[in-house]
């Protein structure tokens, strides 16, 4: 045993990982549970958190699944979260029945279907014939399919779920990267973020950018580059886990989602 470390979790290491033996904070409140609070202010705060985490995936889902223009998708996304606040959508979530993410998408589909029916009825002046839901990927703006999504990518309920999951992960990481950027700027770690941005975001494992090249570019030693990368990744992991802690309802759901987001896809 090397004496600069100990096997205990209490005093050892620590870094920026916060409390908890697993290297992440356990004190963050669950916004999913907060959304069911008796306290209206708590509910609003929680919904604020949830909408920040889910805004991008919801927006992209609306565009891709319902073929909406960017402007319309913005309106619908905003309308969805406003309605969720007004009608306490999320208060009906039962953690025992599945992941919150799935529940939210179900709520979203119902909301969008209603919105679409209402719009169709208005167009027809009261409406007589049944108007089917917009076909996946179809709609009033064929160019707004979320960036070349194949026609069959959203054909089934399973594929919609999978697609939403992928976008949810992307949105979560985007949010984490933005928070990391803000934290680095605040703490005077702009070079560390720049190293991370160049190596992990722009090159992203392509292998075109070496540590040496990046070190020369940033005017720092190679060891500083690797230290910057380690720090940025560690902080990114912390932020992701903190966010997940907020947007999940139980320890089990948190673990499942964390396993999904970090590392490989589950088998």
């Amino acid at each position, binding site marked *: *045993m*090397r004496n600069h*470390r*100990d*096997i*205990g*979790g*209490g005093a*050892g*290491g*620590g*870094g*920026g990982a*916060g409390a*908890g*033996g*697993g*290297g*992440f904070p356990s004190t963050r409140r669950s916004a999913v549970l907060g959304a069911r609070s008796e306290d209206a202010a708590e509910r609003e705060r929680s919904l604020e958190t949830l*909408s920040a985490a889910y*805004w*991008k995936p919801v*927006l992209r889902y609306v565009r891709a699944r319902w073929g909406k223009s960017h*402007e319309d*998708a*913005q309106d619908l996304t*905003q309308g969805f*979260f*406003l309605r969720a*606040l007004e009608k306490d959508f999320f208060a009906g979530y039962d953690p025992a029945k599945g992941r919150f993410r799935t529940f939210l998408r179900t709520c979203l589909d119902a909301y969008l279907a209603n919105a679409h029916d209402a719009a169709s009825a208005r167009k027809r002046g009261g409406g007589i014939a049944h108007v089917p839901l917009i076909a996946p990927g179809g709609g009033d703006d064929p160019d707004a399919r979320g*960036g070349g999504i194949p026609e069959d990518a959203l054909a089934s309920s399973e594929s919609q779920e999978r697609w939403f999951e992928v976008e949810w*992960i*992307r949105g979560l*990481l*985007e949010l984490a*990267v933005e928070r990391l950027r803000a934290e680095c700027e605040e703490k005077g770690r702009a070079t560390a973020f720049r190293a991370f941005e160049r190596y*992990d*975001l*722009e090159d*992203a*494992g*392509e292998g075109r950018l070496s540590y040496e090249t990046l070190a020369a570019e940033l005017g720092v030693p190679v060891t500083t580059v690797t*230290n910057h990368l*380690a720090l940025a*990744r*560690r902080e*990114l*992991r*912390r932020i*992701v886990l903190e966010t*997940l*802690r907020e947007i999940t309802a139980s*320890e089990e759901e*948190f673990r499942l989602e*964390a*396993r999904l*987001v*970090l*590392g*490989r896809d589950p088998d």
Partner: protein
Amino acid sequence: MSGARRENRGGRGDGPPGAGEPADRRLPDRAVAHLRAVADLPDLTGTGYALAGEIARGGMGTVYRARDLELDREVALKVVGPPDASGDLSSRLRLEARLLARLEHPNLVPVHDAGTLPDGRVFYVMKLVRGMRLDAWRREGPGRTATLRLFQKICEAVAFAHAQGVVHRDLKPENVMVGAFGEALVMDWGVAKVLGSAGAAAGAAARAGAAVVGGSDDAPIAGALPRPGGAAAGAAPSPSPGRTSERASPPSPERTGPTTAPIPGTEPGAVIGTRGYMAPEQARGETERVDGRADIYALGAILHFLLHGRPPGAAPGDASPSPSAPGVPRALDAIRDCAMADDPGARYPTALELSADVDRFLDGLPVAAHRENLLERTGRLLSRHRALVALVLAYLLMRVALIFLRGE
């Protein structure tokens, strides 16, 4: 919230509109995949190790190949994998490291180092085993004698752990490595159970995250543990033919009513183990009843796998996983059946007794688990004294030939 949303309606970015929100920064797929991977990598800054790749990923943690920069050698580094708010997994990993550090045996992987990474995750460093898993080794078709000799090494490692008061609880081919020199190494002690009062101390220490170096609980776990059968802690006794009468005897008092220290997350009622290799009492979640004999059951299941090339029947507690296959001696299947008896009291009382019965089979002696009939006994004796039988037959043949020639 609503105010902010309304004010920014129609913003150009697709992020949640709000003060200071950046324009669209949609991460490309490759960046998403890369971030998911690197964010999970252990941060080895300042540890003296450099990451070299991933070896395996399990329920408790991930094992990486790493380089010890000080000693310039490759090692295996195990890190808590999934997030662990309660600290249970970290406690388990700490306890696993502590157990392995104390279980010094040629068939157990030595631990070199342990600690906490800068990212807060618990890790330990062990010898990098170069070899293959037992299931892969079996597929290469080793001979029966080599297979049984290897099985005996597994038994000896397990017997040693039992002598230290440690029950593995998840023995299976996937948790045994066969090294480059034919050595068997029993791995993955993450759900092990420590029997005895020292075990309780060890479990509490692990939960509290107390330091190993200089800690008040630094006494070896084995120090105050009951030693079933009075076996020496430092060396597992060699198999002792002739003690077969003890095979079906009731377990020793230490084994029937141990105080236990379940590793965090393995409290009473929790089902720990792998289907097919779990003893019935283990599969029923009777954690308090699980002792070394549960490992004996798993060893029997491993023997079945080695003999038949497939896991035992899917139903836990199936004492007769399959009928004897052609070519597998009934004595070996009987050994397996005895090890896998539903009743823990009917199993071999120790892994060494199990190993000893296998040894008797290899020596051509009757095994304790099987009462052979006259035909089997004759066959065994003929097989055992093959050279002598061949000589006698040759002699008789020659005599017959001489008589025949004289008669002519």
